Each structure stands twice: as structure tokens, then as C-alpha cells.
């Protein structure tokens, strides 16, 4: 699976995405601020994610056209959520891929399902949606199940789907700054 992160917001989001990806996934993060990019790079190795994340310094508006898709998901941070940027992102998204925009909620750091559930319930209460509180328990059960699942299915490398995934993973060795 390949993810493109446009603007990095806080370092925590990049780390959460990288961890969620698993060892065979790839994340390409484009961040205009070199200091923020450097900060992310230094924190990847201690988090055990350095091998699956590439951080590129560049203004998305200027460099997105050099990125090669497709991506299974694109995370678009609020500061970069401009119509012109969205236009450039559309062709990079795989069929059925998802554009996650500023409305999507992210966890900050290592939040357990229980902590997330407590936070979600408090938020629902505050928003005047107390009906959601019992419903969120059901969602949390499904989330727990998802987090506990072992996705190591020993894929046969000869099947087309695995080959396609491998090809997609290899496809972002070229980065915008390599050319400039």
C-alpha cells in the first residue's frame, strides 16, 4: 500500500500513518518547511519506520506534478487543502483510493482503543450527541478486532496482486528534489 501525505501537520500524524502501514507499505511525505522535514526524519528511525517513509522538502503546489502515483490514500493537511492542490492530487489517486482531508480525525501518538473511545465519547457528549455514546462501544469493538488482527498472510509472490503491490512500492524511488 502507498500513501502520500501532503504537508505533514504534526510529526505525530506522519508517525501514526507510518506505523499503521506495516513493514511492506510506503509513505511519501511532502513538507515545505525543511526544519519540520528534518525533525520527521530524525524521529523515523527510533520509531522503527525509517525504511518505509520518504520525506521530501517541497511546496506541494510547485512539486506535486513530479510525484508519480497511484496512491491508495492521500492525506491532505488543512493548510494545503486548496482547490488547485486537489486538482493535482486527483490523477495520483488509485481507483477506489481515498483522499483524507482536514475533517478526518487523527490520533496523537500512541493512543489505545480505550483512550480513543473515552475521547470520542467525551466529544460526542460535548457536541450534544449523547445517543452516540453506546453506539461508539460497538465501533470500538470492531476497532479492537482490527488492531488485533495479524495480517501476515504469507502471500504467494507469484500472484498478480502481490506483484502489483511490489511494483507500486518501487515506484516512488524518484522524488521531486532528485530532479531539481
Amino acid at each position: 500500500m502507498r500513501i502520500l501525505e501532503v504537508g505533514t501537520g504534526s510529526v505525530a500524524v506522519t508517525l501514526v500513518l507510518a506505523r499503521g502501514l506495516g513493514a511492506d507499505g510506503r509513505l511519501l511525505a511532502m513538507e515545505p518547511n525543511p526544519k519540520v522535514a528534518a525533525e520527521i526524519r530524525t524521529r523515523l528511525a527510533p520509531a522503527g519506520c525509517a525504511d518505509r517513509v520518504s520525506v521530501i522538502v517541497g511546496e506541494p503546489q510547485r512539486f506535486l506534478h513530479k510525484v508519480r502515483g497511484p496512491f491508495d490514500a492521500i492525506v491532505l493537511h488543512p493548510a494545503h487543502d486548496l482547490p488547485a492542490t486537489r486538482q493535482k492530487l486527483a490523477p495520483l489517486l488509485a481507483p477506489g483510493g481515498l483522499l483524507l482531508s482536514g475533517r478526518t480525525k487523527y490520533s496523537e501518538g500512541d493512543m489505545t482503543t480505550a483512550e480513543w473511545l473515552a475521547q470520542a465519547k467525551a466529544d460526542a457528549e460535548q457536541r450534544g450527541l449523547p445517543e452516540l455514546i453506546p453506539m461508539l462501544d460497538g465501533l470500538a469493538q470492531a476497532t479492537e478486532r482490527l488492531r488485533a488482527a495479524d495480517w501476515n498472510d504469507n502471500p504467494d509472490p507469484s500472484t498478480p496482486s502481490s506483484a502489483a503491490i511490489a511494483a507500486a512500492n518501487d515506484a516512488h524511488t524518484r522524488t521531486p528534489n532528485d530532479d531539481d
Partner: protein
Amino acid sequence: MTTISAVTSRVAAGAVTSEQLTENCLSVIQQLNPKLNAFITVTADTALQQARAADKEIAAGRRLGPLHGIPISLKDLLDQQGVPTTAGSLVRKDHVAIADAVVTRRLRESGAVFVGKTNLHEFAFGTTSEDSGFGAIRNPHDPLRSPGGSSGGSAVAVATGMSLGTVGTDTGGSIRIPAAACGIVGLKPEWGHVSASGVVPLSRQLDHVGPLAASVADAWLLYNAMQSPSDRIGDALEATPLKGLRVGTLSGYFFDRLDEDVERGVLNTIQHLQRLGATVTDVNVPHAADMAAIYLHLVFGDAAEYHAPTLESRPKDYTEPVRLRLEMARYVLAEDYIRALRGKAVIAREVDRAFDGVDVLALPALAIPAPPIGAATMPVKGGSDAVRTLMLRCTQPFNLSGHPAISIPCGVTRDRMPIGLQLVGRKGRTPALVQAALAVEAAIAG
């Protein structure tokens, strides 16, 4: 049920006119719709105009094909030019489509007559068709029960003769579930093989557009017409010989939580196929039990993204249950969404591997008979379970994996409610799946 396959030759021969067929459908709608609530919009005038035009063309020797002059309906999630697409929600009550969806256009070009837009579970976000801005839909076999959903109105339309065929959508089972609950055929094509352009999305990565019809042959006619002209195959397919057909039964999870009568009906059908020469082997999908969690996170994430603006601006126009589930969906974390994407890829590979040495997979389409309207739980083997979970249990795997799947009627429960058998085909082999389904349908009838 009148089948398109049977009636179309009579249309071609001038023994019956499109106008007569269309008037029949409109009269059934007039008679039964007040009770069953299958249609949101009935386009009687334009349908009759289309029918008369079709009759003229056919009489002049310019018949376009088997769907020319055949009255069909569209789930009100698909755009039809000049007609509202409500998606079963008051959120969209003022919407009017400016153009046909790709599928609508292709069916129009095949000469089909559109009698109206069918009711559905609001925004296709549910499987019982109870929550619609236009009122609950009722099952024609028992009006106190749900017709299944979300394409509930579409299934009712075909089961009662309000239209001879229909187009539905299937994100977790929304074609196959109502087909099973109403005793008709529903084909969920392979993902990406029928255009979803001009269709209100629920989850773009899981949404499928496809036909519901009175027979397998009819479902194929409609499916074939939904393809781009260059992708179309012949209008009539031959049934595969049952002798030598390799059937894989998905044991374990898929048969764990079934209604007793549904289990008996499906197992009896599979044994019958075996007696007729099919070979039956057990196959499994190791991560089957994780599918519901994967599905939930993907659909929630996708639906929350689409609905966020209208949840803010028009919350009161949603039905309460759908609005609350959409609000809950907004709490899915990006990291869990990503985990679910990984899980989806694993499921797709596992279903591919289940086809090692088999031609089709066989399992129930719907774990329970149509549930009573308002029921929260239903009894199944080993206790009872939430209706929503049970409804999706057997169908959602193939939305995650993208394989083509068809539901065909295979008997009834002791309460005379229909049971659906689901057959799943290999990727890239939808015609082979339909050919096997033709043989199984004939074996069940015989």
C-alpha cells in the same frame, strides 16, 4: 414473474407492445405501491412516450435488441436526466439530475423504458430499507417484513412486476441481500466492471452497480447492456454442464451463524448439485472473521468524508438512525482506516486462493430470512445476533475482494420466505459465473 427473456421475443414479433408492458407495470405500481412503497418517483408520462416510440421503431424493423421497449426501474441513487435523484433522503429532495448516469445512458441506448426511481435505505447506508426519507419499504411476501436493502424498492419492483428488471447498487450486499429477501436474482459485478459514474456514492472503493431481475438470463441481459458497446458479449449465454462443475463451499465463518431453514435450504441445494454431477469441496478464507471490522472502518471512513458537509449544514434532513451512524463514522481514526485497507488487500488475496481448483464458491446470500421491520436482533444457530451484522455477513467479503457474485432463489423457509444461494466467480470470469448460475437455477427449478 414475467421474465424479459420470455417477453422480448413476443415484443419483437409484435405479439405484445412495449406500451402494453409499460401500462401493465404502471398499473401494478398504482395498485401495490401505496402498500409496499417501492417507488419514490414514477415517470408514467415519459415512460409511455418512450414505449410508444419503441413500438414505432420495432414495427419499422429497427429493433435495438432484447431490452428495446422493456420497462425497467432505477434505484434512486442513479441519475436519470431531468428526474430527481433523492438517494432516499430529504437532504437531496430538490436535486434534479442534469444528465444520465453512464449505466442509465447505456440502458437508454439499448431501448429500455424507465418507469421510475425506486426507494432505498437512505443513501444506501443500511440493509433493511426501513430508514428512508420517503418511508419504509415492505416485503411483498410479508408486508410486516423488510424487503432487505439497500436496493429494497428495486427488489420489490421486480418481485411484483412493477418493472421487469432494475438497476441496484451493492456496497456490502445491497443487490444480493434484497434479491435473496424478495426471491429474485441479483448480480453484483466484479468491482470496476460497471461504471459507477453518475451514482451517489457510499464508499467509492466498495460500490458496485448491477442488475436485479426475475431470472439469471435477465440479469445477464441487463448486465451486458450496462457494458460499453465494445465490452459486450452475446445476449444469451449457455448454461455450464453441472457434471464436472467444481463447487467450493465456504465452510466455517460463513455457515456459523445461520437461520436453521436458510442453512437447510442452502445445504440441500448444494447436495442436489452434487447428485447432478458437480464436485463439492470445502474451501476457506482464513481472515473471514475479521471482515466485518475491515468493512466497517472503510465504509465509515468513506461515508463520513462524503457526508461531512451536509451533516453540518442539513442534519435535520437525514433520518435519525442514518444521521447518528454517519456521525459515529466520523470518529474512525486515519490509522485504523489504513489498517482496514491492509486487511482488504489480504482478504482479496485469500478469496483468490480459495478458487484454487474450484470454478465457483457457494454459500448463502443472506444468513436469515427477511427480518420483521423494526427487529434489532434475529435468532440464528448458537443464539441471536444483531440484524445489521447478520444481513451483511455473507455478502460483504466479496465487496472487499471485488469478485463477481450472484444471488439466486433456492427455496423457502417454513414461513414461506425466500432463501438466496450465493455463487461467487473468479475475477475476470463474470460470464463463466453467470453460465454456472444458469445451470444451478435450472437444477433448482427442475
